[in-house]
């Protein structure tokens, strides 16, 4: 059984088709790059996997369950914008995560938060945009989940932090989990990816391993992306 199985998934918003007949199977033990330009359907797909949106047609299964209460226990989700109460301090947010998620590893979160120099007593409201993003990522990655859905995890942070985040993803690598990273900053993450999915106008135009693509096309995933999505 695949960890994630998506079958003929379509999502429409009125007359707009955000996802168009998407079918994917993702096995455990993989780090998957969900790549596509703005408006290609990346966030919509992630939100459906997380149960925040419902499909117009087709099915989505995580561990053979439809997204819902059962899957939220095993899915760690980093949204593309802040979804946490920003009047809370770092310590309080860690408490919140510990209350909500059985699989939250507080010691791991604390270690990451200290590594990145995030003030434990500071409220989120007073943090810079980048620090907010770092904190959310620490909380999400500190869960011992089976699926990680990371929507643009490296968009707003400096290059040194970006390296730290990628190292965190590698060191947290777990044979039982699947990590899905949506981004358009491909060159930064391509060495970390097993599989690459290109989304274009709501359709999967390519799904292969990163190394196969490099071998067959003789270019980096980033170069290939620039070709496929040339404006």
């Amino acid at each position, binding site marked *: 059984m695949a960890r994630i199985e998506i079958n003929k998934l379509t999502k429409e918003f009125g007359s707009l088709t955000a996802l168009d007949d998407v079918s994917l199977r993702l096995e455990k*033990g*993989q*780090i998957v790059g969900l790549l596509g330009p703005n408006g290609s359907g990346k966030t919509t797909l992630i939100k459906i996997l997380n149960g925040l949106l419902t499909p117009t047609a087709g099915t989505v299964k995580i561990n053979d369950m439809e997204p819902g209460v059962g899957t939220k226990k095993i899915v760690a989700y980093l949204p593309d914008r802040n979804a946490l109460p920003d009047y809370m301090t770092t310590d309080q947010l860690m408490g919140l995560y510990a209350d909500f998620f059985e699989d939250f590893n507080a010691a791991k979160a604390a270690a990451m938060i200290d590594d990145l120099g995030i003030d434990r007593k500071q409220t989120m409201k007073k943090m810079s945009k980048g620090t907010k993003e770092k904190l959310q990522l620490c909380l999400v990655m500190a869960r011992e989940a089976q699926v990680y859905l990371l929507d643009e995890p490296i968009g707003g942070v400096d290059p040194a932090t970006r*390296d730290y985040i*990628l*190292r965190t993803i*590698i*060191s947290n*690598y777990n044979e039982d989990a699947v990590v899905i990273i949506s981004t358009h900053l491909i060159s930064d993450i391509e*060495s*970390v*990816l*097993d599989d690459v999915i290109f989304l274009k106008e709501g359709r999967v135009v390519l799904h292969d391993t*990163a*190394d*196969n693509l*490099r*071998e067959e*096309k*003789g*270019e*980096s995933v*980033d*170069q290939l992306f620039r070709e496929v999505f040339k404006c």
Partner: protein
Amino acid sequence: MEWNFKNGIPIYTQIIDEMTMRIASGSYEPGEKLQSVRDLALDAGVNPNTMQRALAELERRGLVYSERTSGRFVTNDKGILDSLHEELAVRYFEELEDKLRKIGMTGEEITGAVNKWLADIK
């Protein structure tokens, strides 16, 4: 140690090449224990599956071996290391020859240039 990856070549083959060089040059010593797959992956900034695939290939080529409980080691086999040096020498000579041919030198001229070079460095 720094790892730099080029575009357009699978990362696992680049890891194989880099580790082969490290073994050949002695920066990984014969018999040395290698770091765990995860630590090597972290060090190189690559996916652990990719590192695993590269190590499996190095093992197949006899450059590293694993011991079931204690980890992975660089080979101690002098024969393997010697033939690795020979292989690398051939590869570098090929590259050199290729470049010299591109600038229009004949086989004879190349031999002459190589002999002169060797005489000079003695």
